[in-house]
């Protein structure tokens, strides 16, 4: 049924009516404004950052002879790629990033997949409880995990001792810090991608497929190998890609565990440049990081392509029979318990206990326990413990709590609202140019790790634009909010899209036929129906922003410190108990949010 549409001769009334058709429909206005905003917030900053890596900045004036500020230059890229320092600035850290990413995938994907399979498909005991416990480690921010790691493994290199050294064990540096620690810490976090992917893929596979294999006479391992695994392979691959691109861009873990022994990844090295000089080299590194992530994701789409997922949901036959584990039940159960012990119980226990210790690594005897780190108010005692008051009397902590709450509330409300709007535009414009364009623009921040994304905003807003109309936002709270909002667009708009998909277009069309205009349609039909989805989308964004460290770390200063940043700086400064206490507060905050979010039907599986 293909046919070219005939062209029509020009006609004045027709043109007038066409313009009226577009202008009179508020939906078009909304689409237009959102496209412009997305363009300004995503495309322009990206271009701006790319441009700045080719432009001479003030700091490098004396290094580039005869150059003016604003001149075109290849200095920064040369510095990064071929300069004397190239090995130390780019290739070394790049190698470290790739190694950490590779091994994180190697550990976390099998771990998460097996956990997913056990929970979704087998008759392992206490499934419901285990299913709940298994995701808890993921709720703990990854930088918190690195703090717990330190609490357990710290050795003399960082001054105060950790739990194991306190027990008299000797912990070598290679275990306490650096790649091994980073890989294990990230694995205990990013296993969740594989777990959630594989588990939901397995749930959607009709167990009749496997039963058919059984009828054909296949043994359990054969069924697993030739039916189940091929069916979930696409999900596993996309988990691999997510894990890899996330792991390469992670800052907090790598900084906490690498910086003290001079082990740098691309992300940590980049931050040093952006907060130091030459800043533009940092931006160039950020572009490398973004390209790397984009490359991985597009390679994945190329390879999996049409086989992205099998239509595993066959409408009927939702019965899913469990695989009997038989003799393997006990060992597998022990495997899960060991995982939970190492990923959740022990680090949390050590972390919490450390907040009560006077000297870390000195055991839990009453003589070494104190509440000072929490509520110590006596300044004379301060030098004896740390140089600060306990966190509840610490003005810095109070300020950071205020900043965190302020940031999360404001940013997540804006993000969730925008997400619903963007979701509305993408679903209603599905297959049309503006719908596709919106979807693609919104996807861009997903390609960037938090620190690369924020570096882009720093590049963009560190100087005024439009002749001062847009002032320099560097160091302001506004910039942090803006960054958090835009970075969470992909996630928020996805939850908005899912939400809007549930509202059938017919419901709006029925209102239209009954005479409702755009405003009435939105306020009386769409918003009331979108309410629940909005709340759960809001809660998940809220938690995600509350956890955030990587994204905002390069924008932080004394006035805008959040709890996660304060914990990070305290830990870098060697005030471990204080850092731990703050982490515990953040954890409590997040857990409470999850419980509330669950009330509104939010699914943790959707919260990355």
């Amino acid at each position, binding site marked *: 049924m293909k046919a070219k549409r005939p062209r029509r001769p020009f006609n004045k009334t027709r*043109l007038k009516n066409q313009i009226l058709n577009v202008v009179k429909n508020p939906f078009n206005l909304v689409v237009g404004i959102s496209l412009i905003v997305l363009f300004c917030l995503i495309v322009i900053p990206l271009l701006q950052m790319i441009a700045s890596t080719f432009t001479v900045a003030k700091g490098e004036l004396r290094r580039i002879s005869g150059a003016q500020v604003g001149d075109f230059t290849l200095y920064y890229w040369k510095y990064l790629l071929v300069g004397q320092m190239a090995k130390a600035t780019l290739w070394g850290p790049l190698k470290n990033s790739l190694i950490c990413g590779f091994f994180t995938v190697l550990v976390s994907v099998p771990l998460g997949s097996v956990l997913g399979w056990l929970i979704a498909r087998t008759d392992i005991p206490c499934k419901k409880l285990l299913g709940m416990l298994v995701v808890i480690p993921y709720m703990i921010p990854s930088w918190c995990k690195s703090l717990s790691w330190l609490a357990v493994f710290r050795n003399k290199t960082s001054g105060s001792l950790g739990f194991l050294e306190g027990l008299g064990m000797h912990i070598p540096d290679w275990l306490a810090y650096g790649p091994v620690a980073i890989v294990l810490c990230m694995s205990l976090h990013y296993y969740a991608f594989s777990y959630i992917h594989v588990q939901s893929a397995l749930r959607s596979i009709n167990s009749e497929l496997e039963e058919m294999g059984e009828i054909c006479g296949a043994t359990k391992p054969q069924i697993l190998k030739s039916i189940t695994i091929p069916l979930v392979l696409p999900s596993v691959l996309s988990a691999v890609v997510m894990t890899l691109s996330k792991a390469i861009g992670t800052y907090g873990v790598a900084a906490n565990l690498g910086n003290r022994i001079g082990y740098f990844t691309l992300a940590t090295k980049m931050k040093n440049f952006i907060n130091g000089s030459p800043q533009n080299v940092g931006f160039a590194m950020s572009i490398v990081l973004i390209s790397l992530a984009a490359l991985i994701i597009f390679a994945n789409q190329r390879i999996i392509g049409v086989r992205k997922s099998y239509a595993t949901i066959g409408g009927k036959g939702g019965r899913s029979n469990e695989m009997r584990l038989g003799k393997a039940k006990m060992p597998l159960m022990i495997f899960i318990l060991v995982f939970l012990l190492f990923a959740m119980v022990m680090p949390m226990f050590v972390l919490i206990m450390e907040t009560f210790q006077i000297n870390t690594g000195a055991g839990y005897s009453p003589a070494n326990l104190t509440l000072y780190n929490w509520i110590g108010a006596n300044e004379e005692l301060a030098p004896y413990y740390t140089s600060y008051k306990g966190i509840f009397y610490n003005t810095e902590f109070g300020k950071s709590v205020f900043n965190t709450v302020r940031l999360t509330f404001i940013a997540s409300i804006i993000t969730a609202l925008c997400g619903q709007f963007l979701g509305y535009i993408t679903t209603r414009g599905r297959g049309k140019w503006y719908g596709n364009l919106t979807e693609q623009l919104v996807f861009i921040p997903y390609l960037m790790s938090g620190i690369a994304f924020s570096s882009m905003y720093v590049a963009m807003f560190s100087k005024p634009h439009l002749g001062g109309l847009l002032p320099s936002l560097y160091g302001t709270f506004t910039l942090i909010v803006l960054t958090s909002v835009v970075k969470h667009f992909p996630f928020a708009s996805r939850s908005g899209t899912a939400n809007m998909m549930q509202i059938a277009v017919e419901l709006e069309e029925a209102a239209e036929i009954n005479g409702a205009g755009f405003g009435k349609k939105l306020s009386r039909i769409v918003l009331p129906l979108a309410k629940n989805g909005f709340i759960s989308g809001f809660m998940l964004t809220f938690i995600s922003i509350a956890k955030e460290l990587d994204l905002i770390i390069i924008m932080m200063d004394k006035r805008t410190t959040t709890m996660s940043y304060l914990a990070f700086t305290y830990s870098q400064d060697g005030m471990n108990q204080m850092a731990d206490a703050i982490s515990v507060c953040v954890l409590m905050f997040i857990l409470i949010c999850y419980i509330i979010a669950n009330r509104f039907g939010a699914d943790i599986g959707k919260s990355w």
Partner: protein
Amino acid sequence: MSRIELKHIDKYYGDNHVLRDINLVIEDGDFMTLLGPSGCGKTTTLRVVSGLEKPQNGVMTIDGVEMINADLAYYAEPSKRGLNLVFQSYALWPHMTVKENIAFGLKIQKLPKEEIERRIQDALRMMRIEEYIDRYPNELSGGQQQRVAIARAVASNPKLLLLDEPLSNLDARLRVDMRSELQRIHKELGTTIIYVTHDQVEALTMSTKIALFKAGEISQVAPPMELYMNPIDLQAADFIGNPRINFLEGRASYADGKLHVSCELDSYVFDKADMTDEEVPNGEFECVVAIRPEQIQIFEEAGEGRIPVRVYANQPAGSETLVSLKTGKSDFLSKQIGLAHYELDQTVYVSIAPEKINVYNAKSTRLIKRAR
């Protein structure tokens, strides 16, 4: 009450030409059914009429008032067309009660309170669902939701009521009930109705006229019985009627105002008066003889004008019996009312009234001889 005229409507989705030069007149008070297989453009036509889709070409008028003029890019808003629509999915707003669903459009029209109340009551009474006034849609069964959807549409007193496959989500029994319900509404309100369906039984039982769609075009517009007796081409003949019409290959020639037709069953001579305006090729040409199963009578004994055939299969179903018959290479189906029993491979004798036969030109697939 209104007269709708569609002239040269074209609709494209990208390069996909989904409606091709649609011309259709729906007279005041008609129950017009748009009938066709899925993907043939009937729902798109309905949406063009409603204003939810904008065609790239063509003109539409309702009571002489221009609602669509694609040349001028003029499209009246759906709410300005004086119509209402019942969606296939019902599209009841789940966050509103039955009452609120019906009141929504009336409130937007800013009708006085008492008037709204009266209209709600009337609509509910008409659909016999007064007791569900305060329920939410998810507290109603499919059939009840369907009634609410219709009540919501008729409450606005539309001049034109559009129904998009409204019965497709109901079970067989409810469907029969709703068919009579819709017929009654049509009579009581006197509203013009456009009804979209792929179910020929719905089309044949309820409509005053049927527009048969095929791949984005209208192939035939006719009253139901005319459509059943004289489908315009082979595809239409094949689509209409259950069990399917029998096709027998044959040869035909036209000379001296007479059409001579022969097939494996028999040979016939037809008058010019029974023929359509369709042009007939010169000399002998291939044709298709089409006979409805119920027009084939079976006798156990031979007799005048009866043709001997072999019984191939026998399917008694209580109220009717389907008998598969065979002669030479042709097989065909006969539908007998009531129970009948024949042995397999038994020889029986069939008789067919020649005036009930359709003849098609095999090459052009068009009808050349009408049934009476």
